[in-house]
């Protein structure tokens, strides 16, 4: 009926210590893990630190740098708070440990614990022999008859007590009944007095403060906890696997489901769809769909949005995720036109360049669009074509008079990675041909090259360079070798609000019906070392002399094929489209045959 309260502060420090450790230990572990893995990513990025990344930073407007700082600082504020909490928490833990250590009541309770090993002065892993010999030695020392006569009565009593303890210790390790008692109750004499109580000081439970405590508990269990859980649950439920809001996904699905062939697929149409996203409504409840649409168009046309500049940056940054979500949904509806246009729209947003036959050129910095389009006599639409002219001529074509600016533009142009297809085939791991009902994947060998490089055919790369090692690991998981390639470096995108490295999206289309057969595969690992190679098409005249295949690194892209090979023998044709999300130009679009044979 009446409880013992923790007047001597014996138990509540342990309770508090446990609660703190439960929170702090996982948090600290996570923090350390994050710190280590972010440094990992940094070292990876160091490997492929590109000129484009540095130029991109140089060309980025101050406005955008300020915007990024605000968002990075938001993240770091959050991290700082977490760090502070961890430090404060561990300080409290240290204080509690010290408090427990210095608390006499606890110490007394601890010392009354019966430890036969320490009494006999032996280690916990001693054998019976060692126990017996230790006992014999100590009993000789402490036996009442063997005690020296000079001792005082007090000292004698202490020694006698000690002797009793030593005997008990020995018995608890050797004798049956005593040992059982010790194991069961922790003391050879059987169950000791135990007390049950509440691990809180009396004043918290008995006096007026107790009502506050009760209120605190009610608040925590009845309101705060359900609130947090329901908020977390609704947040999880409201996002799809691809990271877009469920309402946005359902809007896109609706548009695609009701899509009519008489509608023309244009970038404007997709931007209109994106502007209906729930994410924007949540971010800026006061603004309308038409505003969001206009902001995105402003960004693509590099126009200032006045008061809404910051809003524009956030909208543009979010549109990245939305377009990927739309792409995913479009591929599940097997619609190729919309899938392609989604990626093209992303390019337009990343480069802030509208879709036009001249986008490849207009994505470059410092280009005078008017002089370019009205000026040049030859119709230049590709970077490859641009690099057939001398630097001086290029400066006239692009309308760049400043020599430094021209060099920077040429650096950007020559560092944009173009993909050249070397080999493409359907492969079944461990087999030489594709057999019916097997599981093939599409294996592409590509060469990352610059628009400046002289063209050489795929036959110039010998088969040995394209061959892959056929060991057990590669048979078990043919996609593991992709991980050996470095991650993509930072792209040149000075108008995009966030730093990005982008990727290539690989779509697979069945030629028979012209529809997409599976969701896109994202390629984010390729080596760009070839871009540094010196094979300028304007200076190289003799390919035989200047070209050495060994200087070139062959990249591998492996696309999984989502179905088993058909049962019937024959040739099946697939169109593979590999589109870059970052730049206009470095795309691949070709047909590959699946020859199914017995």
């Amino acid at each position: 009926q009446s409880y013992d309260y923790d007047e001597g502060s014996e138990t509540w420090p342990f309770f508090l210590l446990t609660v703190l450790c439960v929170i702090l230990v996982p948090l600290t572990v996570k923090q350390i893990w994050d710190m280590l893995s972010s440094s990992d990513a940094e070292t990876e990025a160091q490997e492929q630190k590109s000129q484009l990344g540095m130029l991109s930073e140089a060309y980025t407007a101050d406005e955008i740098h300020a915007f990024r700082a605000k968002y990075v600082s938001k993240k770091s504020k959050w991290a700082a708070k977490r760090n502070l909490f961890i430090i404060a928490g561990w300080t409290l833990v240290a204080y509690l440990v010290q408090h427990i250590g210095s608390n006499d009541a606890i110490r007394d309770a601890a010392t009354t614990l019966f430890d036969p090993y320490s009494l006999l002065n032996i280690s916990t892993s001693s054998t019976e022999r060692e126990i017996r010999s230790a006992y014999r030695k100590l009993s000789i020392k402490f036996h009442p008859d063997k005690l020296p006569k000079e001792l005082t009565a007090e000292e004698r009593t202490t020694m006698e007590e000690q002797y009793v303890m030593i005997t008990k210790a020995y018995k608890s390790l050797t004798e049956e009944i005593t040992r059982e008692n010790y194991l069961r109750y922790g003391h050879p004499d059987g169950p000791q007095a135990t007390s049950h109580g509440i691990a809180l000081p009396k004043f918290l439970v008995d006096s007026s403060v107790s009502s506050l405590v009760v209120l605190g508990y009610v608040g925590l269990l009845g309101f705060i906890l359900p609130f947090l859980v329901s908020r977390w649950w609704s947040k999880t439920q409201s996002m799809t696997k691809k990271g877009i809001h469920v309402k946005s996904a359902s809007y896109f699905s609706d548009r695609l489901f009701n899509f009519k062939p008489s509608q023309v697929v244009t970038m404007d149409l997709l931007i209109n769809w994106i502007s209906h996203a729930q994410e924007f409504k949540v971010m800026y409840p006061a603004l309308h769909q038409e505003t969001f649409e206009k902001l995105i168009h402003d960004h693509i046309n590099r126009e200032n949005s006045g008061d809404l500049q910051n809003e524009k940056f956030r909208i543009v940054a979010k549109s990245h995720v939305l377009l990927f979500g739309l792409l995913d949904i479009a591929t599940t509806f097997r619609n190729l036109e919309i899938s392609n246009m989604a990626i093209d729209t992303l390019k337009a947003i990343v480069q802030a360049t509208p879709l036009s036959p001249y986008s490849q050129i207009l994505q470059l910095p410092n280009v005078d669009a008017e002089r370019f389009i009205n000026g040049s006599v030859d119709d230049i639409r590709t970077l490859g074509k641009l690099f057939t002219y001398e630097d001086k001529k290029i400066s006239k074509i692009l309308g760049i008079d400043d020599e430094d600016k021209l060099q920077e533009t040429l650096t950007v142009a020559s560092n944009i990675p173009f993909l050249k297809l070397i080999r493409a085939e359907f492969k079944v791991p461990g087999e030489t041909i594709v057999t019916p009902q097997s599981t093939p994947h599409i294996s592409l060998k590509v060469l990352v090259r610059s628009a400046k490089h002289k063209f050489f055919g795929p036959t110039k790369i010998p088969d040995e360079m394209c061959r892959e090692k056929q060991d057990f690991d590669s048979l078990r998981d043919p996609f593991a070798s992709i991980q050996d390639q470095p991650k993509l470096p930072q792209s040149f995108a000075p108008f995009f609000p966030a730093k990005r490295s982008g990727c290539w999206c690989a779509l697979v289309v069945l030629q028979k019906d012209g529809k997409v057969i599976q969701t896109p595969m994202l390629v984010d690992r390729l080596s760009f070392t070839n871009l540094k190679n010196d094979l300028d098409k304007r200076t190289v005249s003799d390919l035989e002399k200047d070209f050495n295949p060994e200087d070139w690194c062959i990249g591998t892209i492996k696309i999984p094929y989502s179905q088993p090979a058909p049962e019937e023998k024959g040739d099946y044709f697939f169109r593979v489209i590999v589109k870059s999300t970052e730049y206009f130009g470095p795309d691949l679009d070709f047909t590959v045959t699946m020859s199914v044979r017995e």
Partner: protein
Amino acid sequence: LSYDPNSKLLQLSEASEDVDMNLKQINKLTQDLIAESNPNFTPQPRDDSTAMIKKLFETGLKQVQQQKLPEALKSINLAIEMSQRKRATWEAFAVQLQELQFMLKNRVDLSLIQGKFMDALEDLELLHNTGLNSSDVFIRKTDGLMKLKQYEQAQVEVERGLSLDPSNAKLKALHLENSRRLADYNG
């Protein structure tokens, strides 16, 4: 959903774009059916419409023989317009489609000869969308796209054509030629 017994039309006050289109279709069909004066109408295409369209079309063919190509194009355009306007919505779709496809094929060739490549391409696109997958369509599409300097698109079309008809000599020739032009396009 509300139905007005006087006008015989359906209405939904807050219809979304797609539902609205469906309603419009139903209402049009209803109105056409009501307007039909012949009590014994069937899905068979009306003979008088067929005759008119055929006459216009044959005029066009004759003009082609006389090398009066712009006039021929005009006649065939008229024939197509007539088929779109005169045919009732309940008449057999297969017949209407075949008629349109046949006339469009002729229009495509006329357009290509006269250098109207955009027109030809859009007609070809429609033929494609409505299920005509023969190599002829791919050949003409590739040709039209190449003439409009859309080499990347042309490559897509010719490759698709070849995957459906790998031995077609004309397609192979076009593929080679387009690859060459594409290489030049890319410097």
